[in-house]
C-alpha cells in the first residue's frame, strides 16, 4: 500500500517534470490542424516533419535562415569552449599542482566571483563592448561568455587535475621529459575527460545565454539562436508548430550534453558544503 503511494507520487513527479519537454516534441510533429484543434491530441495522430522543413528551408528574414542563427550560436559557443578550456586548464594546473602564496586567495576569489549577479553587469559590459568597437559582432559575446564560464571551469577542472597521480609526472620528468612535454604527453591526456565535461558546461552557458546576446547584437544576420527565437517567435499570434520545432532543435543538443555531465554539476556546485 505504502509502496503504491510512493510509486504514484513518483509518477506524478515524473509527469510534471517531463511533460513540457514531451509536449514540445509532440507539438513539433503534429500537422497544424491538429495543433489548433479544439481538443488537444495527446500524441500526434498524423506525425509530420513539415514544421522542421519549414524552418530549415525557409528564410526568417531575407537571406537569413534558421541554420544561420544556429551556426552563429554554434560559433560563439565553440569559441567560448575552446578559449575557456585552455585558460581554465592552465589555471587549474597552477592551483592543483603548486603551493604558492596567493593560492588560497585565488580559490576564494573564484567562489566569490561566481556569486556576482551577471544581470548587473550588462550595462558596464555594454560600455566596454562599445569602447572596444565590438558592438554588433559575435566576438563581443565570445569575450563575455568567456568571463562567465571561466570561474566555474577552473573550479571544476581543479579536481580533475588533482586526481591525476603526481607520480606519473615525476616519472616522466625522471625519464627526461621537459615541463612542456610532461604537460602535453602525460597530464593532458589524463585530464582530457574532465576537460570534456568542463567544456560541456561552458558550451551550455554560452548556448543558452539571452540577455547579453539581446543587448550586444543589433544586426539581425548576427543574431544567436536565443535572440532569434524571442524576436521571431515570441510575438503575438504565434504559429506554434514551427516554434516548437525550432525549440526542439535548440533544446536537444543541450539535453544530450547535459545528461552526459549532470553528475559533476551537483558535486561541483555543492562541493564546499559536503566537505564542511
Amino acid at each position, binding site marked *: 500500500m505504502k509502496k503504491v503511494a510512493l510509486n504514484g507520487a513518483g509518477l506524478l513527479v515524473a509527469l510534471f517534470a517531463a511533460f513540457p519537454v514531451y509536449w514540445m516534441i509532440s507539438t513539433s510533429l503534429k500537422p497544424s490542424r491538429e495543433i489548433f484543434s479544439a481538443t488537444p491530441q495527446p500524441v500526434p495522430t498524423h506525425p509530420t516533419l513539415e514544421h522542421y522543413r519549414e524552418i530549415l528551408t525557409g528564410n526568417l528574414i531575407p537571406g537569413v535562415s534558421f541554420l544561420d542563427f544556429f551556426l552563429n550560436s554554434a560559433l560563439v559557443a565553440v569559441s567560448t569552449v575552446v578559449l575557456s578550456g585552455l585558460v581554465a586548464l592552465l589555471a587549474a594546473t597552477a592551483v592543483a599542482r603548486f603551493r604558492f602564496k596567493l593560492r588560497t586567495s*585565488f580559490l576564494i576569489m573564484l567562489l566569490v566571483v561566481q556569486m556576482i549577479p551577471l544581470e*548587473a553587469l550588462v550595462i558596464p559590459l555594454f560600455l566596454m563592448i562599445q569602447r572596444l568597437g565590438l558592438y554588433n559582432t559575435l566576438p563581443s559575446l565570445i569575450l563575455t561568455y568567456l568571463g562567465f564560464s571561466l570561474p566555474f571551469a577552473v573550479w571544476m577542472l581543479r579536481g580533475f587535475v588533482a586526481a591525476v597521480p603526481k607520480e606519473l609526472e615525476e616519472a616522466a620528468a625522471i625519464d627526461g621529459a621537459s615541463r612542456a612535454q610532461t604537460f602535453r604527453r602525460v597530464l593532458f591526456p589524463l585530464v582530457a575527460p574532465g576537460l570534456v565535461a568542463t567544456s560541456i558546461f561552458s558550451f551550455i552557458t554560452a548556448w543558452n545565454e539571452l540577455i547579453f546576446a539581446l543587448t550586444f547584437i543589433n544586426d539581425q544576420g548576427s543574431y544567436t539562436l536565443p535572440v532569434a527565437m524571442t524576436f521571431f517567435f515570441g510575438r503575438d499570434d504565434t504559429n506554434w508548430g514551427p516554434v516548437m520545432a525550432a525549440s526542439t532543435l535548440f533544446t536537444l543538443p543541450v539535453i544530450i550534453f547535459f545528461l552526459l555531465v549532470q553528475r559533476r554539476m551537483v558535486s561541483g556546485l555543492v562541493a*564546499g558544503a559536503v566537505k564542511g
Partner: protein
Amino acid sequence: MSTLTEVPEAAAARDTPARRRRRVDRLPYLLLLPALLIIGVLLLWPLGQVVVMSFYRLNSVRQLRGDREWPWVGLGNYTDILSDPFFLTVLRNTVLFAAANVLLTMVLGTLVGLLLNRLGRKMATFVASCVMLAWATPALTGTIVWKWIFDDTSGLVTWLFNALPDGLSNGLFGRSDWTGYGWFNSPLLFFAILTLVVVWHSFPFIAVSVLAGLKSVPSELHEAARVDGASPWRVFWKITFPLLRPVFGILIVLSTIWDFKVFTQQFVLAGGTQDRPTFMLAIYSYAEAFSPPPKYGLGAAIAVILTLILLVVTGFYVRMVLRQEDES
C-alpha cells in the same frame, strides 16, 4: 623552445638552487595570469564600473563611447529611484517572488529528493531521468513551451478549463468560456505562472543535491529512528535536516541568488520589457538602461541595488556558517 631539447642534468647543472627555486615559484603565477586577466577585466572591472556609472547621468550611447561628457550627479540616480513609488512596487515584486520561489523550490525539491531515496531502483532511475529533463531544458525553450501550454486559444490549460462543467466553472470563476482568456494579463496570475515555470526549472537541482546528501548519510540512523517509532516528519527534522544542514544552507543561498535575478523566463513570458506592473529588479534595471530613451546611469544604480541585496543575502549566509562552526 630550447627547454624541449635540454638534457635534464645539463639544466640542473646550470641552475643554481636559488635560481631554480625562483623559476619554480614563478610558474604557477604565469599559469594563472590569463585567468586572472580575464576575471579581472570581464567580471571585476565591470562590477566596479557599474558603481561608477550609477553616479553619472548617462543618456546616450555616445557618452558610453566617450565622445561626450559624463555629467556627475552624485547620488541623484539613487534618490530618483528611491523616491519613485514605482520602486516600491518593483522591490515588493522581487522580494515576494524570490521568497515564494525559494520556499516552493526547496519544499518540492526536498520532497522529491526524499522520495527518490525511498523508491525502488528502477522507479528511482525513471523518475530521476524525467526530473533531469526539466533541469536540462534551457530556460528559454522551457518558458516558450509553458507559454504554449497557457496559450489563450489552443493551449492545454485553456482547453482544461473549457472542459470543466459549465456550472462548476461559472460558480468558481464566474465564466465558462475560457477561449481568449489572457492568462498573463493580471499581475498576480502572471507571477503565479512565472513561479510555476521557475520552480519547474529549479527543483531538479535541489532534488538531486538533497538525494546526493542523503546517500552520504549512514542509513542506520534513519532505520534506528524508524524502529523506535519516530514519524517521518520527526525523522526528517531531528536527523536528516541537522545532518544535511550545510547542504541546505548552500542550496537556499544559491536558490535565493538565482530567484532574485530571474530575467530570461520573465522576459520571454512577458514578451519583452513592456509589462511594467510585473517588473522585478533585474528586468527593471535592464528596461531603464536599454529601452528608449536609454538611461544607463539609472539602470546602473538599480543594478547596484540588486547587487547589494544579494551581497546581504550572501553575508547572512556566511555569518550563519561561521556561527555554526563556532558552536561545533
